[in-house]
């Protein structure tokens, strides 16, 4: 009653004051984190669940109100910003705590809070048996808070804070079950690999600040387009350095190796951080700084190439995995590859659109997988599953919807519309090429094959495991909502009714299409639909009808080698171990006492030496201390008078 009333008057009366509530969005999860962190394990599980979920829910509600207001009566210039306070103020260096809302950050905020809320809700049941329940929610809340700071940041410093914050939470949550050392190692790997990218990004930020003299992102974009001509060295360098950061965070070639290992964390974590939100931070970064990438066509081209390569490589790897979560991890890498492809050909809004639908269906798939894993007592191997569609009907249907959306089955799924848009632009955009299109198509085929391989292995065939636990209401509800979103989420951007890209066009320039004649949009849709259906059929034939064919192939030596190659993620881990880790350790070992080290060693030695020498002056004798004062006075007089 009350809330309804409030909703009615909210847009009318609150007006601009509505935007004043922006700060609440990250503040709620932060408060939740603090409350959970402070009380720690003493907090009862029920209360921890309520605080953890409620805080994200509250910020989702605020985001909803602000979003409604934003759409119904857009602020001037379709953006609004709220400065809370200036952190420090020293000359030109004036980083403020300012949140910036435009359609791009609004969409991100929506997805983070809503999907985040559903995943939190799901976790209340999923994690119910776990030790460290409130610790889990504390980390999750901190993550949501950092992610919101990241997408709402108005300046580079705040963005960096959010960026590192999500990295930290990712590390903490991958290693959530820290008693198993493998999990700790996976967490470490994720942290170190993304760090390579982060360093590059930080250098990029510094370069931007020193050349353009401001930290404010919008001002940077403005000044950059005035100061730097297209293709100038600085623009290329800055864009390339930022791209490095994006590659690390979004697990793209060549920094993709950490994501499959990150699956060591609890499944809701994989859903929230390693599928729906954090890994797309790279996409957000590039979209946010799209002006820079437009100024550096070389780098933008590289984005597209990397995206195309990544989506193919990850697609092949996904085909061979046994572990259900690793399939989904490779699939995530591959789908983000699509987003990069879209960014690379200048289809900014298509990338954002795919980000949104991907968040829905990939979170759904992870949560479904979590339900399956829990049902079979933490069984991750798909080959030990089967026939679950009778036992877990709701999980099955929602998983099926998610898979359909991932495979982009035509017309009814959200994934179809978003992926189709990317494929269309990869061909027709100014920067597009038939090669990108072909890669995207091949990727689409792979996607539907590995997706339905997963569906068939888990839910069809003979039952192999015993279902020990069925999901309760709090797990079913998020699955249902996400399933609905995975279907209707695509209808906001239909061909010729582009609501979504209209909405975001003030923040993201629309793509420039050139060669309309090569292949009509309708034709390309038909082909894409055909490809995904073919993929499903192949999966049906290979994994349900005649699994023997696959076995025969993989038992053949060449097939076996290929299988192993794909299974290991194209041997990147092996390569990096040989090329980077090994030599690095070798250099570190052999070079232990080098010149640089001598400086530090020398500093330590001198430090200790002077410590000992000075300690002699502390004799504890008053007469010596008085002498010290006198000597000091003589020195002071000496300096003042004779200098």
């Amino acid at each position, binding site marked *: 009653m009350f809330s309804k009333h409030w909703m009615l008057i909210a847009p009318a009366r609150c007006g601009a004051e509505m935007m004043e509530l922006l700060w609440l969005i990250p503040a709620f999860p932060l408060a939740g984190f603090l409350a959970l962190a402070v009380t720690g394990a003493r907090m009862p599980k029920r209360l921890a669940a309520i605080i953890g979920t409620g805080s994200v829910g509250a910020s989702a509600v605020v985001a909803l109100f602000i979003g409604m207001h934003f759409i119904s009566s857009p602020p001037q210039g379709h953006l609004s910003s709220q400065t809370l*306070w200036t*952190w*420090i103020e*020293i000359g030109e260096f004036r980083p403020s705590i300012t949140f910036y809302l435009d359609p791009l950050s609004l969409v991100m905020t929506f997805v983070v809070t809503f999907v985040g809320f559903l995943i939190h809700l799901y976790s209340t049941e999923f994690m119910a048996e776990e030790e460290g329940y409130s610790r889990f929610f504390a980390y999750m809340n901190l993550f949501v808070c950092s992610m919101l700071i990241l997408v709402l940041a108005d300046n580079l410093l705040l963005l960096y804070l959010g960026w590192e914050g999500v990295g930290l939470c990712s590390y903490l949550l991958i290693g959530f079950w820290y008693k198993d050392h493998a999990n700790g190692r996976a967490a470490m790997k994720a942290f170190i690999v993304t760090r390579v990218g982060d360093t590059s990004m930080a250098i990029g930020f510094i370069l931007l600040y020193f050349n353009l003299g401001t930290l404010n992102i919008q001002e940077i974009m403005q000044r950059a387009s005035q100061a730097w001509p297209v293709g100038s060295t600085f623009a290329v360098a800055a864009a390339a350095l930022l791209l490095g950061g994006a590659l690390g965070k979004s697990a793209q070639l060549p920094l993709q190796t950490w994501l499959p290992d990150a699956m060591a964390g609890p499944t809701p974590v994989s859903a929230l951080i390693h599928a729906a939100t954090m890994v797309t931070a790279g996409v957000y970064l590039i979209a946010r700084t799209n002006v820079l990438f437009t100024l550096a066509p070389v780098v933008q081209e590289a984005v597209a190439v990397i995206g195309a390569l990544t989506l193919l490589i990850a697609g092949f790897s996904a085909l061979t995995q046994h572990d259900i979560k690793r399939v989904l991890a490779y699939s995530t890498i591959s789908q983000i590859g699509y987003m990069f492809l879209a960014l690379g050909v200048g289809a900014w809004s298509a990338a954002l659109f795919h980000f949104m639908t991907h968040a829905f269906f990939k979170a759904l798939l992870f949560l479904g997988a979590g339900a399956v894993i829990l049902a079979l007592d933490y069984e991750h191997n798909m080959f030990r599953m089967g026939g679950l569609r009778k036992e877990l009907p709701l999980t099955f249907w929602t998983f099926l919807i998610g898979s359909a959306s991932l495979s982009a089955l035509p017309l009814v799924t959200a994934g179809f519309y978003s992926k189709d848009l990317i494929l269309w632009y990869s061909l027709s955009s100014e920067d597009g090429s038939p090669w990108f299109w072909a890669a995207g198509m091949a990727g689409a085929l792979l996607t539907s094959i590995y997706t339905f391989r997963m569906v068939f292995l888990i839910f069809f065939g003979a039952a192999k495991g015993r279902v020990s636990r069925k999901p309760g209401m709090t797990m079913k509800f998020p699955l249902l909502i996400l399933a609905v979103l995975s279907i209707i989420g695509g209808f906001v951007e239909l061909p010729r009714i582009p609501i979504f890209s209209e909405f975001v066009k003030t923040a993201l320039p629309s793509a420039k299409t050139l060669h309309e004649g090569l292949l009509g949009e309708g034709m390309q849709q038909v082909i894409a639909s055909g490809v995904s259906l073919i993929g499903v059929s192949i999966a049906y034939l290979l994994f349900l009808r005649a699994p023997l064919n696959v076995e025969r192939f993989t038992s053949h030596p060449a097939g076996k080698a290929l299988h192993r190659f794909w299974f290991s993620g194209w041997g990147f881990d092996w390569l990096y171990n040989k090329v980077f880790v090994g030599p690095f350790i070798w250099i570190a070992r052999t070079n232990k006492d080098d010149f640089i080290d001598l400086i530090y060693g020398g500093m330590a030695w001198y430090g200790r030496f002077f410590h000992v020498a000075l300690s002699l002056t502390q004799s504890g004798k008053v007469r010596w201390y008085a002498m010290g*004062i006198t000597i*000091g006075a003589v020195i*002071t007089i000496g300096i003042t008078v004779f*200098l």
Partner: protein
Amino acid sequence: MTLNDLAPLIPLMVIAVSSVIIMLGIAFYRSRAFSGLLTLAGIAVAFITLFGVQGTRQVTSLLILDDYALFYIGLILAASFVVALLSSDYLEGRRENIEEFYILLLLSTLGSSVLAASTHFVSFFIGLEILSVSLYALIAYTRNELNIEAGVKYLVLAAASSAFLLFGIALLYGETGTMEFSRMSSGISAQGINKGMLLTGFALVLTGVGFKLAVAPFHMWTPDVYEGAPAPVTAFVATVSKGGVFALLLRYFIQVDMHAYPSLFGAVAFIAVASMFAGNLLALLQKNIKRILAYSSIAHLGYLLVAFLAGGVMRVTAVTFYLVAYFITTLGAFGVVTMLSGKERDADAVEDYQGLFRHRPWLALIFSAMLFSLAGIPLTAGFIGKFYIVAAGAGSALWLLVIMLVINSAIGLYYYLRIIVVLYAQPGHSEVSAVSSLPLTGSLVLVLLTVLLLWLGVYPEPLIEMIHRMTMRF
């Protein structure tokens, strides 16, 4: 001097009167609660009456009550309040007759407040002596061997340093013919001044003040006194007594315009660098927490002097903010030591803190926050303070000093982190950390200090605004 002139002095008088009432009270009936509560009430009332002082009021030529003085007096009063709270539980059971402690505390607070407001060498010296004489007794208050040794050392050396100070004042008076700070610069510009005498006077005043501030090379008493004094008194020596003196130093050298004397500038720079190095290097392998904190305070005063040397508006802002941060962290750190101290001895060995996180996670976290702030890690007040100092130094192109500061921050990090590592290590065999229960007031104070510390680290704007307003009218 008229009755009207007395109005702005009310805060100081409240403190003085409280101490007299307590003394009278003790004469007839000893009550710890009475003395303690009256002390707290007196400080609180004095603090409130600070807001009643309107505008800038010069009271005779001795004292001035401007925004700057009021701010520093407020800071001093707040710190004394914290010390009074911390010491009430600490003193219990350490000796009989603990009521007089409060008289001494109030008197030294009064002395320090007078320093913050003084514009004349006479009030300067009287303030300093009120402060010091009470401190001698406070340091030796619990009367164990260490206490008394520390008290006597402080007595002898402080008296010696006062002699230097007085000689300096005499020389300055002899040359300029005035003891008022504001008239000194016009006295200096007069003809026929012996510049050598004048500079010697400055140098001697610097010696006397340097002793109180415990900057190198007048620092050698610091660790002994810090270690020997009861923990809350150490907190008091490190904050209240230095705060007043520093406020005075800043006012004095701004009014006399120190930058007109390059060689004096050089002397202060030498003291700053010497303090940073001496403090940090001496703390490096030290095993006694109180001594470490003593050395660290030497280094921090060195950092402060760097900002002090910078010119321009930034100087007062940087110094004041840093001093506030330093007050909070120092009180917090010694507060933790106070809370953990057993009746036999203070918890001052590093081993006492081994594995503190296991049985007292809160205290360990608070201590870590304080140490992080001392080390200047972001999100604490200490970081912002250091940032302002570096900015002030860089703004005045004092590159050498800034580089020294940065090097020393790195050295300092080592011993702060060393303590933090110990806090989170496996518990050792120490009887100190097994103190049964922590007093409630002390715990609340520590929590409050920690909140303030983080608050200023994240949202320093209000304080900076306040300082800016204060410097406007300076």
